């Protein structure tokens, strides 16, 4: 029987995964925001297929983590909210990608 120390060592790579990004909907949001400079709520809703409320709740979590920032601007006379990844958000996403890549590389068949 494996000791608890052994188990801890085995799962340590998995435990290091950023769980905030790992959630599928947030991963999708982060991916889209990673490949563009910024986008508004409607655009992200269309691309991800998430509902308004669902997207809003995930956005709030990402904003609270400092991964996402909200830019208010005017288009003509109408206010428009653009969302973009912060430098911390970009670097967290890059780390997540590397982490996941290494994790899958380490899986032997």
């Amino acid at each position: 029987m494996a000791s608890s120390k052994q188990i801890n060592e085995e799962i340590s790579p998995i435990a290091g995964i950023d769980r905030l990004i790992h959630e599928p909907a947030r991963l999708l949001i982060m991916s889209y925001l990673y490949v563009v400079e910024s986008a508004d709520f409607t655009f992200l809703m269309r691309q991800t297929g998430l509902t308004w409320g669902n997207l809003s709740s995930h956005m709030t979590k990402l904003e609270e983590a400092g991964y996402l920032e909200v830019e208010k601007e005017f288009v003509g006379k109408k206010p428009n909210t653009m969302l973009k990844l912060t430098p911390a958000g970009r670097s967290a996403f890059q780390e997540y990608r590397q982490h996941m890549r290494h994790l899958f590389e380490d899986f032997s068949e």
Partner: protein
Amino acid sequence: MVDMMNLKEFERKAFRSTFQDGLWDILIGVIALNFAMGTWLGNQGWGDFWGPMTVLPINLLVYAGVWLGKKYITLPRVGRVKFSPARNRKTRKLVAAISILLALCVLAGLVILSVNSNLPGSVLPAIIFAILCLAVFGLAATWLNVPRFWAYGALLAITYPIGHLMKQGTVWGVRSAFAPFFVTGPLIIIVGVALLLRFVRDYPVSIPEDANGII
């Protein structure tokens, strides 16, 4: 999971989504149709200069319509996005490449005209037109990731040469070389209108469910 998530494809999909409204297709179709319309007007007594010149304002009006359509139909449905500097550089390169191509073709046309005064009977304009269409639409299709532009390029590339192969004289009141544009233009417009209708159906204007959210 990460390997399966292709970020380049995400970016391409996001970019392509701004071209699914059919508005550019309608503009391309109208411009093609106006090749024939201009010549038709010329044959109706407007003259070789004023006939084609008369359709220019129509092209500008349709362009204004595309701009308004993007603002009032597309944006509220697709949303606003600022693409990465790399994508913007790519788009600027495309515009520059197309401008250079057009300038080269105009230059080539002028050189040929100055060398050969019997140009209208020559096959050269048809060849230049075909190459130009394939090059411009091929570039646009590749760089904008909109494959149907290849089809438009090919369609337009054969339109003028087909007209050229037809007997000299008039077909449907239009000098034969331009008559096929009466088919090509509306065909592209129909595709554009179909895309626009599908776009409006598939992308209703979104209504926020949760006004207390992040926005």
